[in-house]
C-alpha cells in the first residue's frame, strides 16, 4: 500500500483543524452543559435517558453536517482553487489522492466524534450517575454514528468528483434521507402490489445505504444490549459500501479533465 494517501490525509486533517472546523465542539459543549443543568431541574429519574438521547443525537447531527458540507468540497475546492494542479504533478495517482482526502476527513470526524463522546461522558458524570456495564451500548451507538459518517463522507466525496457543492449536498442528503427510510420504502412498494413500483422500491432499498440499521441511539439510551452480530454486519457493510463508492469515485475522477 502506497504512503501517498496518508500524506494527503494528514494534510486534509491539518486543513480542517486550521480552518477551525473543530470549533463546532464549543457548541456541543455548550449544549451538553445547558442540557445537564436543565435536565437536573426538570426531569427527575430520567436524566440518563435524556442526556444520552440528546448527546448522541447531537453527535450524529454535528458529524453529519461536517461530513456533508466538508465532504462535498473536498475535491471541488481543490479543482476550483487549482491546488490540485501542482499536487497531481507529483507521483501520486488520482485514486490515491481521493483515498487520502477521504481518510483525512474521516480522521477529522473520528477526532471530533471522540471529543464529543468525552463531553457526553462528562455530562453524564455531572448529572450524578455511576457508569454501568450497559454503557457499552453508548460506545457502540457512537461507533455506528462513525460508520454512518464514513458512508456519508464517501457519498459526498463521490459527488464532489463531478458536480458542484450545491448539487453534491442535495444528492448526498437525498441519499441519506432515502437510506433512513429504505425499509419503509421497500415495505411501501410491497404494499402497492404493483410490480413496477415494487421493483423500483426494491432497487432503491438495495442501492442506497440502509442508514436505519446504524441508529442505536434509543437502544443505548434505554441501556439495551446491542447484538454483536449487528456490529459485525454494520462494519462489513460499511467497508464494502465505502470501497465500492470510492472505486466508483476513482473511476470517474481518473478520467476527468481538469480544465
Amino acid at each position, binding site marked *: 500500500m502506497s504512503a501517498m494517501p496518508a500524506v494527503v490525509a494528514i494534510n486534509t486533517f*491539518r486543513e480542517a483543524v486550521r480552518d477551525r472546523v473543530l470549533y463546532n465542539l464549543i457548541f456541543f459543549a455548550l449544549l451538553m452543559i445547558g442540557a445537564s443543568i436543565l435536565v437536573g431541574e426538570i426531569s427527575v429519574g430520567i436524566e440518563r435517558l435524556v442526556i444520552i438521547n440528546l448527546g448522541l443525537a447531537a453527535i450524529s447531527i454535528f458529524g453529519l453536517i461536517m461530513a456533508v458540507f466538508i465532504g462535498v468540497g473536498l475535491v471541488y475546492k481543490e479543482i476550483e482553487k*487549482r*491546488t490540485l*494542479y*501542482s499536487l497531481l*504533478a507529483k*507521483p*501520486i495517482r488520482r485514486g490515491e489522492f481521493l483515498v487520502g482526502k477521504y481518510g483525512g476527513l474521516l480522521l477529522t470526524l473520528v477526532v471530533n466524534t471522540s471529543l464529543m463522546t468525552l463531553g457526553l461522558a462528562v455530562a453524564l458524570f455531572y448529572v450524578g450517575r455511576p457508569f454501568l456495564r450497559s454503557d457499552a451500548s453508548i460506545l457502540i451507538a457512537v461507533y455506528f454514528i462513525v460508520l454512518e459518517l464514513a458512508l456519508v463522507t464517501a457519498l459526498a466525496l463521490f459527488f464532489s468528483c463531478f458536480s458542484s457543492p450545491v448539487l453534491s449536498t442535495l444528492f448526498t442528503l437525498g441519499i441519506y434521507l432515502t437510506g433512513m427510510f429504505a425499509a419503509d420504502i421497500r415495505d411501501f412498494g410491497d404494499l402497492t402490489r404493483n410490480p413496477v413500483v415494487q421493483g423500483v422500491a426494491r432497487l432503491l432499498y438495495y442501492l442506497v445505504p440502509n442508514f436505519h440499521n446504524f441508529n442505536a441511539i434509543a437502544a443505548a439510551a434505554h441501556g439495551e444490549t446491542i447484538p454483536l452480530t449487528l456490529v459485525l454486519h454494520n462494519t462489513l457493510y460499511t467497508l464494502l459500501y465505502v470501497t465500492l463508492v470510492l472505486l466508483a469515485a476513482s473511476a470517474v475522477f481518473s*478520467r476527468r*479533465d481538469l480544465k
Partner: protein
Amino acid sequence: MNIPAIEILGLTKDYPVGFWRKRMRRSLDNLTLQVEQGEVFGFLGPNGAGKTTTLKLLIGLIFPTSGTARVCGRSIDDVGMHREIGYLPEQPYFYDYLTARELLDYYSRFSGYGAAARRDRVARALERVGLAGAADVQLRKFSKGMLQRAGIAQAILHDPQVVFLDEPMSGLDPVGRREVRDIIVELRQQGRTVFFSTHILSDAEMLCDRVAVLVTGKLQGVGAPEEIVSIEVRGMEILFEARDHRGLQPGLAERATRSGTRYRLELPEADLYAVLEQLRASNARILSITQVRPTLEDYFLRMVDREQPQSHAVGVTP
C-alpha cells in the same frame, strides 16, 4: 543514444462547447515536437494558443483526444514519470493555511524523502527562490510574486530532470523576473531541461536554446530564436555622423532619422553601395553598417496575424 527529454507525437485536444448541442472545439491540433535533454525550450503563443493545454496534457491534468507523448522516455500516462518532472502551473495557488516551509515539506513527502533530507531540500529551495525570510509565513499572506516563487520552489524541490513552467515570469516585478531567469540558467547549467511558456518574447530570446510558436493550437515554427528570425534580412541600417547637414547629398537627410550630428538610415540592401557613395561624397563619417533582421516579436506577430482570423471550431460531434 540520448533519449529526448520530451517527445510529443500528434497531440490533439478537443473540448466540448455549448450546453444543449455540444460541439467540439480544437484547442491543440496535431502537435509534434521534440525537446532534447538539457535544452531550455520556450513555448510562445498568444492567449488561447494552446500553450497551457499542452502543458496540462504533458502533466496528465487533461487527456489527449489523440496522439501521445513521452517525457524522459516514459509515457505521460505513467505516474512514475512524475518523479522526473517539476511543474509550475499558471497563476499558481497553494494551500493558504500552510506556511511556505510546510507546503514544500508536504510536497517533498511525495518524493519519499526522510525527515532530514526534507528539511535540507526545503531550506535550499526556499533560499534559492528568495523566500528564506518568509519560510514560516502562511501562504494566505503572500503576494502574487511570492506565490510564484513558492511555485517555482516546489517545482525544483526534488531536482527533476525536466521542469515545466507555465508563464513563470507572470506577476513578477523586474527583480523577480531576473531571479527566475537566473534559476532557469542555473537549471540549464545543471543539465536539466526547462520547458516554459511565456508571453515575454525578450525573455524567450535571451534564455531559450530553441522556441516553438503556437497559434490557435497549431505549431507555426520551431527553432533557435536566431534561426527563426534570420531567415530573411529586412534591409540595412547605416549610422553616420555629419557635422553639417547642409553638406549632405540631396535626399539623404530627408530619409534619415537625425539625433544631434548623428543620423540613422534604413534602406533596402540593393541601395547600399549607392548610398555609401553619396555619404563618401558628403564627407559623412560612417559609424556602423548592420543588417536589419526581424525580431522574434516581428515573427511572432506575423504568425499571429496569419492565423488569428481563422475560425478554430472543427465540426466534430460527440
